[in-house]
Structure formats: C-alpha cells, structure tokens
C-alpha cells in the first residue's frame, strides 16, 4: 500500500511535535524514521496508526484520506518497543486476538496462529503467558500478532531496543527478510542509525519534528544535505572543523585555525561566497602517512576490534580517524594525516545546509 503524508502537523498544547512533514512511501517499501529521542518520529507513527489525530495535514493510504479512520479500519499491524503483549492471555490467545476480533471461524484461527508461530519459531510456546517468555520470544510473539491479520502496513516502534546486542542483529535480519518476503509496506521508527542503515530502503531523518532528509542509506551517508544529518548518521561520527577558504591562482584551499591547510579538489568546490565555513570528513577517510600530511599528536587510541579509533590533536582541534590495528600507533606519538579529499563535506555555518548537495 502506498502511503502519503501531506504537510502532517501535530501539536500537543503549544508544542509542535511534528511540523509540516511530507513523505511519499512506495508500495512494499521499508522506510525508517530516524532521529534522536523527542524528534517526533513516534508521534508520526502513532498518527499513521490512527491513535493520534493530526492537527493539520493529511495521511493518505492509496487514494483515501484516512485522517478520521479508526485504527481498526486501517489494516495495519504494529510492533511496540514494550512488546505490548496482553499479559493475561497466553501466546496463542495473543496471536489469535486480532482474528477473533475479525470473527474468523475457530478452525481457521487455530491454523493461522500455528502457521505464524511456526514461521517465527515460537510454535512450542503457545500455552505460555508473556511473563514466562524471554525478551526475544516476546518480541517474536508481538511480531506474530502484527503479522497474523495480514496487514497492508507494518509499523515498528523501536522494536529491538530492549534486546541485547546479539539478539538485535538476528532479529534485524529476520525482520528484514520477513518484510521482503511478504512485501508489506513497512515503517520502522528507530534512534539507532545502524539499524536504519542496514534495514531500510529509504531513511527519513527527523529533528525537532522537522524532516531533515528522506533518501536511501548510501546517499544519506555520502551526501548529507544538512549538518545534523552529517553528524547523526555514520559511526564513528564525522569530524567537523571551522575552516577559512582562500583562493590563489585558481586553487582553493581550506585553512585550519592552526594555520595548516589542505587543497580542495574542483569536484568538491563548496557553492558559497562566504569565507568561514564548516568542513566535515568521516574518520574512515583519514589515514596516517609517511609522506606529506597534517602533523598532529595522538591523544589516545581506542581499540574497536576491526579498527582502532585514534584521537589526535592538531593544535586546538581534535581529529578522529580509523586505522588498521596492524599499524602500531601509541598515545603521544606524532603522526601525519592524509585526508581523502574526495570525501570532504562543506556546510554553511548559519543555515547548516550542505554547500555541495543543495
């Protein structure tokens, strides 16, 4: 089912939780709503579910404006962060409840519940109460309850944030695979950018109720449209510096506060006439070198397994970069840093918009 949000706005009292949100979600697409807590992503989801009524704007399913539709008429399934299983019912009763409400024949309910339970690997737990299940099992029941009525839209509200790290990775791929197999349009709310990047076809980044970007994960990572997106997406976070632009003989360079400078290639020439701007570069695009580079002193080394995260200081500036653990670097060592110049990002300091992609 296609979903269109048109200038969707929700006020709680005087506070605007969601402001003029416009999104176009294609049939069968997996869209993540990404943002820090309190950015309005859950509010958006609850409006789509029909729990909250929008203050302004429209929610359109296919071609119908559903603003006034009750949740039960919207053909949605939802998985909650708290699982929200009915504590007084067994797993079977939990799974069967949506079908009982639809007044399906008893035999069919039995068969369908067993089918969904087996699909999720909880077939042997049918007689247990939710309180007797582990977090992962409860999550599967919640997922089963959302799937059993064959919804046209699946809503996930941070479904994995209460699970431990290992289980989260398994559930992540399971949800992704289920969604692809069933082809159900899905909206997934999360504050975890890794989850959003790995699962979603497209990611909508929100901040303070305002949409920051809506694009595919690769584009979001490589071509951030705003400073916020650049900072929020990517792990470890992007390095950001204030630099001064100087053009001499047609060669544009960025000068750091310390006086050091780098040349900006023509493909990355920021579209601005301002002198002082923000420059960003991701830690994985900086390497230590024996040749020429920016001189800096290592403050400390954080082993991360596959890479070491190295924090160096260049005058007042801290620079983070990733390095192969094979290259032995220790605190207080001097290193020369080489920036991969084709990955530089530039942002306007006032508008916080990208000077490359907007």
């Amino acid at each position, binding site marked *: 089912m296609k979903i269109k949000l048109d200038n969707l706005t929700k006020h709680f009292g005087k506070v605007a939780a969601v402001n003029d949100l416009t999104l176009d979600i294609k049939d069968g697409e997996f869209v993540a709503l990404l943002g820090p807590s309190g950015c309005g992503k859950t509010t958006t989801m*609850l409006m789509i*579910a*029909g*729990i909250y009524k929008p203050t302004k704007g429209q929610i359109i399913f296919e071609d119908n404006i559903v603003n006034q539709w*009750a*949740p*039960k008429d*919207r053909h*949605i*399934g*939802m998985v*909650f*962060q*708290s*699982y*929200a*299983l*009915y*504590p*007084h019912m067994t797993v079977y009763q939990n799974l069967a*409840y*949506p079908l009982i*409400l*639809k007044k399906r024949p008893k035999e069919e309910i039995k068969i369908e519940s067993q089918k969904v339970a087996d699909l999720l690997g909880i077939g042997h737990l049918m007689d247990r109460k939710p309180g007797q299940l582990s977090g992962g099992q409860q999550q599967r029941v919640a997922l089963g*309850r959302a799937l059993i*009525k064959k919804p046209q839209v699946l809503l996930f509200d941070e479904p994995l944030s209460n699970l431990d790290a290992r289980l989260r990775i398994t559930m992540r791929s399971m949800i992704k695979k289920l969604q692809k197999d069933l082809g159900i349009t899905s909206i997934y709310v999360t504050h975890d950018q890794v989850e959003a990047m790995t699962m979603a076809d497209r990611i909508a980044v929100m901040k303070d109720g305002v949409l920051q970007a809506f694009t595919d994960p690769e584009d979001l990572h490589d071509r951030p449209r705003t400073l916020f997106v650049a900072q929020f997406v990517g792990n470890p976070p992007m390095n950001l510096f204030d630099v001064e632009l100087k053009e001499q003989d047609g060669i544009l360079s960025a000068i750091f506060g310390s006086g050091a400078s780098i040349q900006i290639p023509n493909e990355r020439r920021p579209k601005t006439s301002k002198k002082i701007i923000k420059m960003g570069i991701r830690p994985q695009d900086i390497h230590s070198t024996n040749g020429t580079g920016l001189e800096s002193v290592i403050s400390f080394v954080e082993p991360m397994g596959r890479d070491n995260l190295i924090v160096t200081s260049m005058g007042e500036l801290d620079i983070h970069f990733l390095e192969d653990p094979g290259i032995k670097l220790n605190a207080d060592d001097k290193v020369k840093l080489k920036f991969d110049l084709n990955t530089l990002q530039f942002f306007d300091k006032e508008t916080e918009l990208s000077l490359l992609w907007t």
Partner: protein
Amino acid sequence: MKIKTFFSKSFPIVLLTVLTLPIILGFLWILISTFSTRAYGLLPVGPDGKFGGLTLNNWQFLSDKAIWYVTLNTFILATGLTIGVVAVSAMAGYSLSRIKFPGRKGILSLSLVLHAFPSATLIIAIYFVLRWISKIPILGNGIPLLGGFGYNTLGGVILVSIALQLPLGIWLMKGFFDSVSWDIERASLIDGSSRFRTFREIMIPQIKPGIAALSIFSFIQGWSSFIIPYSFMTSASKATVGTYLNNLLTESAPVNYGELAAVGLFQLLPVLVFYIFTQKYLLSIFAGGVKGTS
C-alpha cells in the same frame, strides 16, 4: 550484635502490641460478654459476684426471624453497594485516566472534595432528594427486593451509599488504570478492537487486583454501615444489622450488654473471616491509591 538484632526485631512488635491493646481488649470483652450474664471487666461473674454465670442466653436472638431478615437486608445492601461502586468507578476511572474531555480536571478535584466532605452533613439534603425520588412511580418504591430507590427503601440506601463511596472508588480505579501501559491499549485498538471492548477485555484484566480490593472495601463498608440506613430506613422491618444493634440500645428497658455484644459479634464475624482471606488485596488498595495523582 545478637542482642541488638533481638531488640530491633522485638521493639516494633512490643510497640504494636501496646498500641493495639485497647482494641484487643475490646474484642476480648465482646467475646466474653456474649457468653456471660454479667461481666466484671473481663471476668464473667454470677449473681454472687464470683466467677461463673456462663450462659448461651445472649445468643437467643438467632432464633428470632427478624435477625435473619436484617442480615439478608444487610447482605443485599453490601452486595448492591459493591456492584454499583465497582461498575461506576471502573468506567469513570478509565475515562478520567485515559480520555481527554472538557471538565476532566474539574470532576477529579470535585470528587476529591466530596471525599473529604463528612457524609453526616448531607443527611437532610439527601432526605429531600429521596423523598422526591419516592414520588416517581415504580422507580420510587415499586421494585421487588430493593423496594425502590426512594425514601425508606433498601434501594434508596444503596443509591446513597454508592454515591458517597464513589469518590474513593473513582480515584482508586483511576490510579490503577494510570499504571497500565498505553501500549497495550494501543495494540488492542490497532488489532481491531473497539474502545469499549478494549476496556472490557484488555484493560479490566490488568486492574483485577484493584477491582478485588475495591469490592472488598465496599462490601465491608456496606456490611457495617449505620448512619445511612439508620437515617433513611425508618421502619424496623427494613433495617440492617447495624440499626438492629442500635435498637437494642435505645429501648427504654435496661440495656442487656450481653445480647448487645452477641449481635455485635454476629455482625463482626463475616467481616473478620472475609478480612483474613482478602487482606492481600486490601493492602494493594493503599499501594494503588498512592499512585492516583492526576
């Protein structure tokens, strides 16, 4: 060290014993008096002033038809009060906890004020209201068993008792509903349930301990109520155990304290038994009540 733990363990017990001693002595006196013609303190004495005079005469009232009639009345009153209070409180508590509507804050604070209001001050006003209800045909005084909802009927007494019990019940139920997660309710609505069905099938089971506690509390309240039945049910035949007890006191003849104690114990016994089996739930009434902040 050992002495210290012994002291800290026994001290509360000793303190509680001392504080409850008057009540315990009271109960003991009732128990002993019921089996004696006369009691000198806690000592049953015969006509000669020495120990003796034990008797079962005080329990003769049990063979009187009237006591069973008033017991049935009291039971109906307590049950009706319980059903009414729980039904109204659960629904009102849910609405006040979950639904935004104009006047919500007003109802909450008004009911709190009513709770603080001494019911005795309302008696005259309620009398006029009940007299007015009496004038309504059938509903006033033409219903079997309850008599109706007007003055001098059991239904009227139940109605008034419910009203006076409601503020506590509503706040209690609201407190319990407040502690149920929103997500469960939302999940149910999304699963395809209506609001009322969600209330009945999903929400009510979550607050069962609260309902149990309120039921017990209301039942005991109804069973031992006196002022309201005494004021609004003047005919002796319709009285409750509480008023029956009072009748023994107000007669012009000298008071038979032995019989008085026996009737008192008779009224007390069901409550005591009830209490022993349900104190677990009654404790949650106070735990749950604390949460009831708006």
